[in-house]
């Protein structure tokens, strides 16, 4: 359902990703790992068309993402759920409104929104915080709201860029359990992470990139940063 064909994206001199080809099937759970600056976020942003590829094609559900017109982009993005570490919640909206807004842009009737949002908040375990603002809840709870928002429209793919990055281990694992649960319902999950501990415990497909190039792709893979040439101490569970 997702296929990259010889995709290259450079920022001037800097290499984002280079000549990447990969295929991800429906229902998979995939970890995207690699040292800092290796191009993981670039990879993900290309799929969302937050960035334009210089070269190559990205196919998603049968169409070429690189050929989408500006008018088609919103619809394309709506077919995916996203949880980003650095682009989280709308600060001026309550927890409820943050989730509801993802449904509003799909023009769901208010009746449906009022019924479905509490269900989602319940699913991620924060129904009691519905009326609070993001600043009034913990980072872990914020991330759960982000997950609720990402899945409320039942997307076929969930993309998470370091969703556990700022969390303490326990909360991190709770988010992981949530993602696994969502994957079991049939949603494809693509998760970017630095954490070898999480990757090694989950036993999922692992795609490793370095300097923008694909260096490893294993089912039931593991992640040992030093093997992939990471010089930084990235072994720690939740690096900030």
């Amino acid at each position, binding site marked *: 359902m997702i296929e990259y064909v010889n995709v290259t994206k450079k920022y001037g001199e800097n290499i984002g990703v280079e000549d990447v080809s990969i295929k991800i099937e429906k229902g998979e759970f995939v970890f995207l790992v690699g040292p800092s600056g290796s191009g993981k976020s670039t990879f993900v942003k290309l799929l*969302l068309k*937050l960035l334009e590829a210089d070269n190559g094609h990205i196919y998603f559900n049968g169409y070429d993402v690189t050929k989408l017109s500006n008018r088609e*982009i*919103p*619809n*394309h*993005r*709506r077919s995916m759920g*996203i949880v*980003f570490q650095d*682009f*989280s*919640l*709308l*600060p*001026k909206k309550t927890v409820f409104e943050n989730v509801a*807004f*993802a449904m*509003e*842009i799909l*023009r769901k*009737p*208010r009746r449906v929104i009022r019924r479905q949002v509490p269900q989602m908040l319940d699913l991620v375990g924060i129904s009691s915080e519905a009326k609070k603002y993001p600043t009034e809840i913990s980072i872990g709870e914020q991330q759960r709201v982000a997950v609720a*928002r990402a899945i409320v429209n039942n997307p076929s793919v969930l993309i998470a860029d370091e969703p556990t990055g700022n969390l303490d281990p326990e909360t991190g694992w709770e988010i992981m359990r949530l993602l696994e649960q969502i994957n079991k319902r049939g949603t494809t999950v693509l998760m970017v992470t630095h954490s070898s501990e999480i990757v090694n415990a989950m036993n999922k497909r692992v795609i490793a990139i370095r300097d923008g190039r694909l260096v490893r792709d294993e089912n039931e893979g593991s992640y040992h940063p030093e093997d992939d040439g990471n010089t930084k101490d990235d072994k720690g569970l939740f690096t900030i």
Partner: protein
Amino acid sequence: MNTRVITALRQALRQIGRNLTMTMTSLFSITAILLILGFFFIIIVNINFMTQGIRDSFDTVQVNLLETTTQEQAQTMIADLKKQSNVASVVYQTKDDALAHWKEQWGDQADILDRLPSNPLPNSIIVTVKNIEKVDKIVTYAEAMPGVEKITYSKDTVNKLIRITNIIQIVALVLIIFLLFISIIVVSNTIKLTVMARGREIMIMKYVGATNWYIRGPFLFEGIILGLLGALISGVLVLVIYHLIVSKYGVNVVMIMSSGLISESTMLENLTAIFAALGISIGACGSIISMRRFLDT
């Protein structure tokens, strides 16, 4: 109204409520500018009205006849004049009519006229022209007629008046356009601050797949609502002040200009429509301009 419009409107109201400082700043600037515009508007409309009045009172040519000119001769002259183009009407005014007219105009002091030994005024023909700017032809024609003593008309005065009012109008118009321009910039800057403060929010919305119009909608309504509120406040202020001016100085103006100020109800009608339109367009333009940069990716 469809649900999208309602959603955008609801969000606009929420934004206004949750950013009160910003709301007040925008509202204040719109109101201030519309107030200034309102005063220009009052001035320009009244100048127009007065010039019209003055022009109307100056559109006659008085052809004074010699003592020797007989009634029959006068009638032939009138018939001749009536055939000329640019002539609206021709009437004969006897010296007695003229004196009566004077007395009427002088009012209280008219008894001075009663003390005159005899009527000093001549019989005359009053020609009303259609277009005062082309009065010369009629004057030349009338001068050539036998039995004419003197012709009085006020083309120069009228021309001067027209020229001056034209200049005033152009200056006022330029100022109004300039002020409008400034107001759109001020509003767009205030809204831009709001937008910038919410740059991250806008990014998040785009990431999640909101269309540009979805993002723009609430800001657009915010601008329009602020514009209308500003128009309401400044409109009421302008009308109240106009009311004070009319009730205090209206009479003096009538004395000086031989025509009054525009009535308050006419002013109300014109001002309401114009201010509403201005408020909406200033708000809408301001918000669209301020968002442009954030939505082009």
